[in-house]
């Protein structure tokens, strides 16, 4: 074997790292080296075809007055963007997002609470884990149907209230424009809490058990264990959930779209975008709105990362 081949093999061992030296059979030097990229190509192609190309297309549509069907797409420059920014009623819907933003804090608090409790050895903990995660697995359409029935007059919620003699609390949970966004945001909490819960639980379970033992020996209460061990070690996950909460509440779509169709003051920015593109048939303007939402989400995330910088967790 020539020195050249050996040198190359040695060089790549450091690069690839994961293979034991004996398992390598350098055939011409490139075969196994390229293999990861061949495997990578498939997801990359899918990503490009189904994510980046559509986004590029969307940018292009946002510069046209296309109606979604015409054979020709007339270029109108930045007219659509000007239109969006000169129509304040298009931005008014962002205040609906505040409901979901507030709800996401409730959601994170609940998820954290349950994750902490179930990370200790609670009776039936696996059953409870399943129950809490289950709503996330249900199809959004089914959830919407369940909750329309839950909220409708004389529906489940009203019946439960009647059962406890609280008839005076009964009202139009979806029909009353003062509270329908709260009803919808609660549905959203019910649905997505399981996801947050699993994220938190995973993070909590990665904390070494000796830390709890040591803490218990030192006489720490459960709350103190949470305050000084769990909370600091899952900080990055909480940070991540926070970013997801902001971008998620700006881009709420599914639940209000299926439950109310965005009627009666429940329209979010995404519902408005979809209506613009597919009901008013202004795909160009709708695309411009989508681009603006993308930019807003990126900016918010960037600001959030600047304000709350990522910290390395060190428990020892």
């Amino acid at each position, binding site marked *: 074997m020539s020195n050249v081949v050996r040198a190359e093999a040695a060089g790549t061992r450091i*690069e690839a790292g994961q293979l034991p030296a004996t398992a390598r059979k350098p055939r011409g030097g490139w075969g196994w080296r*390229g293999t990861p*990229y061949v495997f990578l190509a498939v997801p*990359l*192609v899918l990503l490009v075809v189904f994510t980046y190309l559509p986004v590029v297309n969307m940018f292009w549509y946002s510069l046209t007055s296309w*109606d979604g069907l015409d054979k020709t797409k007339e270029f109108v420059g930045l007219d659509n963007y000007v239109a969006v920014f000169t129509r304040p009623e298009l931005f008014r819907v962002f205040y609906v997002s505040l409901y979901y933003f507030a709800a996401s804090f409730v959601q994170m608090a609940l998820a954290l609470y349950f994750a902490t409790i179930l990370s200790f050895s609670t009776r039936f903990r696996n059953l409870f884990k399943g129950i809490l995660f289950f709503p996330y697995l249900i199809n959004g359409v089914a959830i919407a149907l369940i909750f329309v029935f839950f909220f409708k007059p004389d529906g489940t919620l009203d019946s439960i209230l009647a059962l406890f003699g609280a008839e005076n609390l009964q009202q139009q949970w979806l029909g009353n424009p003062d509270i329908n966004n709260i009803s919808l945001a609660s549905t959203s909490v019910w649905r997505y809490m399981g996801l947050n819960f699993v994220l938190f639980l995973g993070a909590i379970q990665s904390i070494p058990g000796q830390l709890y033992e040591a803490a218990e020996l030192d006489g720490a209460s459960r709350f103190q264990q949470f305050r000084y061990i769990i909370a600091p070690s899952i900080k990055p996950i909480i940070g991540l959930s926070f970013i997801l909460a902001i971008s998620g509440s700006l881009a709420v779509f599914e639940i209000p779209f299926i439950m109310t169709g965005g009627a009666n003051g429940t329209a979010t920015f995404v519902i408005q975008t979809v209506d613009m593109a597919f009901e008013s048939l202004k795909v160009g303007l709708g695309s411009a709105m989508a681009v603006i939402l993308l930019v807003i989400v990126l900016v918010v995330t960037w600001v959030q990362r600047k304000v709350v910088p990522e910290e390395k967790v060190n428990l020892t």
Partner: protein
Amino acid sequence: MFPHARRTRLLAVAAIASTVALTAACSGGGESAEANEDGTPSGDLLVLTWRTDLLEDGTFDEYAERFNEEYPDVDVEFEGLTDYEGEVRTRMNTDDYGDVLGVVGTVTPDQFPDFFEPLGDVEELETEYRFLRDKTFDGQAYGIPVVGNTQGIVYNKTVWEDAGITEPPTTPEDFVDALKAIKENDPEVVPLYTNYKDGWPLTQWEGHRGEITANPDYVNEMAQSDAPWTEGTDHYVIDSLLWDVVNQGLTEEDPTTTNWEESKSLLANGRIGSMVLGSWAIQQMQAAAEDAGTGADTIGYLPFPHQVDGTFYAAVGGDYNLAINKNSENKVAARAWIDWFNTESGYAEANGGLSPLKEGPTPDTLKDFEALGVEYLELTPAPAGKESLFADIDAESEVGTNTPDYRQRIVDAARGASGETKDQIFDDLNSEWAAGRAAVEG
């Protein structure tokens, strides 16, 4: 770490390229015969349909079998789409949208030649068919309706009779009074159900435009008007009635939780008094009444409560129009299917609608209208060069006469949920419409 060796990079590129090629290959290919040598239609035919219910219960397979008795060499396949309008519109950006399909409502007339095969001179086709004008452009017909619809109000006869109403209301005020009587007679009954939540049933109110003034040119004139919501216009009368019934609490308690499928059995069981729907709905309601054991006779059909010189008018027009995909490789068979479907299949009668044929029979479902002497009114198509004007203004202004949004807004305001007044909404609609006109004509 990016591949250093050039060959590695080449390999990666090749892999990506082949994946793309494979993906592309899936959508290509497929051959088709135009027709047999003697001119009889043959080959594969893909028919897109919005009637997924008839696809599931096998009705369409029967149609295909009977079609094959006449044209044995054509292999008909169906594809049902639940969100027909949305999905087909998107698919029309490709060449692959079946051989025969229903013309999507949002395609404007000036776009017809880009997507559909002309079926013939409209004057000539009109010797045989009716309701064609809506889907014509430049003197050519691009679609033939499978069935004709008229517009009205389905109601539960028992509920109305129990409330002591035996004569059809002839004015909007009469109608409101009738609904009030129903409510007084039994407060548990919803006199008029809007089906607000599903949205599209509210667009059925739009079908009555033209009837109020008995003016077949109403829509064309609306495209020339800067204030279509002024006292006396069709839209003013129709939307005022909607406002009044909601405002007076004669509709469902919480409109945001309505349910279309449920509404059929509620009407059949007398929990609902009436609903504003096209004649296509009569048969579905009758079926629901049969299922509920109250009998199809419970369901009646009323014209819009408005008369011109003592006569009711009801708008008629085509339902979906069948058309041929311009890119179809089997246009001969596609044409054979359309002609067969409209003349031989019996679809229109089976669905209780008006036949698309000029000489077609009047269906049993409309015997109520016949007894009342209702005059049918077919809207005049737009003059040449302005075929798409109305649709363009409608879209540009974002009023959306055929979208649920603007009538949901009226319902919300009328029940006091949004704080807007009727005049505010109508003024707003007028100014939006005027702005849309200015933008389109400008």
